[in-house]
C-alpha cells in the first residue's frame, strides 16, 4: 500500500461527493419542475379551498413558495446534511424515520438476493465459460437469455401464482403475518415472508452476472497460459483453481458491486408485487402519492448505496490485484 494507492482512494471519495451533490441538484430541479402545487400537497385540496387569500399568502410565505429555487435548494441541502430530511406527506412522519424502518426491512431482502445471485451467477458463468459450446454451456446460456428477457415483476407474479395461490406454500405478501402484534413476530416469520421476494430477486440477478463472467472466462480460456497448462494435462477443477480463479475474480467483483443498482431496481418491482413494506415500495408510493420529500431522500440514499458499492469494488480491486495496489491504478 503506497501513497498513490491512498490518493487513488481519496480521488474516488471526492468524486462520490461531487456526484452525490450533482444528483441532489438534478433531483431537486426535477421536483421543482413537477406540476405539483406545494401548497395543495401539504395542506390538502379541501383545506386550501376554504381559506382566504390572506391565509394562503401566509402559508406561501411559511412554505417558502416564492423564495428563489437556489435558496430553496441550499436550505434543503443544508438540512439534509444535518439529518433533517423533512416530513413525509404520506406517512406523516420524519423522512429519516420512514427511511430507517423501510431500509431495515429491505436490507435483508437485498442482502440475501445480492449474495445468492452473486455466488450463483459466478458459478454458472465459470461452468459455462469453461465448457464453451457443450451442453452445460448451451443450457446456462438459454436460461440466462430467458431470464434476462423476463421482467422481474412478471416473474414475481408467476412465483406468486404457483407457490402462494396454487400450492399455498408461501404467504401472498407482506413481511410479517397478518393479525400478529409487532412483539409476537419471530425471525422465522420474517424469513418465511422474505423467501419468495428474495428468490425472485436472486433469479433475475443471476443472468447478468453469469453472462458477463462467461465472457471473461472464455477470454481466459483462450489465453496462452491456459493453453500451456492444458498441454501439460491440467484440467477441470485444478485448471480453474490455479489458472482461472484469480483472473476471473477481478471482473466478477466489479460486476457484483455494479449489480447493487440493478438489485435495488428489481426490489422496487418485487416489493410492489409482494406488498413487502421496503424502501422500493416506499419509493413507488412516494412517486404515486406526490410525496416529494420522501422521494428525494430515497433517491439520494439509493445513490449513496450504489456509489458505496462502487467504492468498495475499487478498494477490493487493490486487495485482489497486486498490480493496482502497487500504484498501477492510474493508467
Amino acid at each position, binding site marked *: 500500500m503506497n501513497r498513490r494507492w491512498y490518493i487513488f482512494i481519496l480521488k474516488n471519495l471526492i468524486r462520490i461527493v461531487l456526484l452525490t451533490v450533482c444528483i441532489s441538484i438534478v433531483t431537486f430541479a426535477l421536483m421543482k419542475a413537477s406540476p405539483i402545487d406545494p401548497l395543495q400537497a401539504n395542506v390538502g385540496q379541501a383545506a386550501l379551498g376554504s381559506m382566504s387569500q390572506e391565509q394562503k399568502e401566509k402559508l406561501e410565505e411559511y412554505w417558502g413558495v416564492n423564495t428563489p429555487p437556489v435558496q430553496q435548494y441550499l436550505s434543503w441541502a443544508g438540512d439534509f446534511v444535518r439529518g433533517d430530511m423533512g416530513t413525509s406527506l404520506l406517512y406523516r412522519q420524519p423522512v429519516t424515520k420512514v427511511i430507517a424502518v423501510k431500509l431495515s426491512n429491505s436490507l435483508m431482502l437485498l442482502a440475501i438476493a445480492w449474495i445468492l445471485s452473486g455466488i450463483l451467477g459466478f458459478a454458472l458463468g465459470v461452468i459455462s465459460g469453461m465448457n464453451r459450446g457443450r451442453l452445460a454451456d448451451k443450457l446456462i446460456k438459454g436460461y440466462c437469455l430467458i431470464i434476462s428477457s423476463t421482467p422481474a415483476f*412478471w416473474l414475481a407474479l408467476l412465483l406468486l401464482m404457483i407457490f402462494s395461490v396454487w400450492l399455498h406454500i408461501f404467504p401472498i405478501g407482506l413481511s410479517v403475518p397478518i393479525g400478529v402484534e409487532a412483539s409476537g413476530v419471530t425471525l422465522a416469520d420474517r424469513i418465511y415472508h422474505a423467501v419468495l421476494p428474495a428468490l425472485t430477486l436472486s433469479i433475475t440477478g443471476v443472468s447478468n452476472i453469469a453472462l458477463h463472467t462467461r465472457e471473461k472466462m472464455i477470454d481466459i480460456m483462450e489465453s496462452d497460459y491456459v493453453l500451456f497448462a492444458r498441454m501439460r494435462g491440467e484440467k477441470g477443477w485444478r485448471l480453474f483453481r490455479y489458472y482461472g480463479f484469480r483472473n476471473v475474480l477481478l471482473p466478477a467483483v466489479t460486476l457484483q458491486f455494479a449489480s447493487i443498482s440493478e438489485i435495488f431496481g428489481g426490489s422496487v418491482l418485487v416489493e410492489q408485487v409482494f406488498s413487502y413494506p421496503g424502501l422500493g415500495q416506499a419509493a413507488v408510493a412516494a412517486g404515486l402519492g406526490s410525496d416529494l420529500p420522501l422521494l428525494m431522500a430515497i433517491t439520494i440514499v439509493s445513490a449513496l448505496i450504489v456509489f458505496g458499492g462502487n467504492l468498495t469494488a475499487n478498494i477490493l480491486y487493490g486487495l485482489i490485484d497486486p498490480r493496482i495496489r502497487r500504484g498501477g491504478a492510474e493508467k
Partner: protein
Amino acid sequence: MKILNRRQRVILGIIFSIIFLAAVCIFGSLGTEAARVTDFSRKNLAPCAEYIFGTDWLGRDMLVRTLKGLSISIFIGIAAAAFSAAVALVLGIASATMGKTVDAVISFIIDLIMGVPHILLLILISVALGKGLKGVVIGVALTHWASLARLIRAEVIQLRESPYIQIAAKLGKSKWYIARKHMIPHLLPQFLVGLVLLFPHAILHESSVTFLGFGLSTEQPAIGIVLSESMKYLVTGKWWLALFPGILLVATVMVFYVLGESMRKLLDPGSAHE
C-alpha cells in the same frame, strides 16, 4: 445433418425476428379500437379457440390488448433508441475529438445517470412531468443513452491509441477528419448492435414503470398496465390474464436479444466467416 451453414441460419433467425416484430406492430396498431371494446356477454372466459388468450372481467379480448400494449412498447423502444443513438454518437465523437477535459465531463455525466437506480430515475422523471404516458415515454427515451455512450466511449479511447489513428494524426489529418473517416466506420457495427440491444432494456423498463402505476391511461393499454390489472384478479384464479401477455412480452424482448446477438455475429469480423 446440417442443411444450412451457421451464417445462413443466423440470417434466417434475423428474418424471423423482424417478421415477428413487424407482425406485433401491425396487429397492435390495427387493434386500437378492438382493444377497448367491452362486451359483458363474454367476460372472464378462459382461453378457448375463439379467444386464445381469454377475456378479462370487462369482456375485452386479451390477445388484442396484449398486442396493442406490445406495439406501444416497441414504439417507445424506437423513440428511446433514436434519442440514445444521437446522444451516444455525439458524446462518443466529442470525447474522441475534444480532449481530456471534455472526456472527463462526459464520463462524469454518465456516472451521474448510472448512479441512480434506473427505475427510480424513471419514477422521478415521471413525477416531474406530471405522471401520464408522456412522462414514461420521455423518461425511457432520456435515460437509456448512458450505457450505449459508455460502450462507445470505451471503444473510442481504445481506438485513439491504435497505430493507424496515431499515424493519421502524425500525418497532419484534423481530428474531425480522423473521427469521420477512421473512427465512425470502425464504431458503426458495435454501435448498431448496441442500439438493437438497447430495445430489450427500454421495453422492460417501460413495462415495469407502467406496471407500477405510472403513465396510467385507459385508452392506451401499455403492457405493464395490462399486467398490473391482471394482478388484482390473480388470487381469484384467473391465471390466463397474467400468463399469456407476460409470455408474449418475454418473447418480444427475447427476439430483440436474438436479433442483436445475430447482428453481432454477422458484423464482427472474428465470427463473420464461421
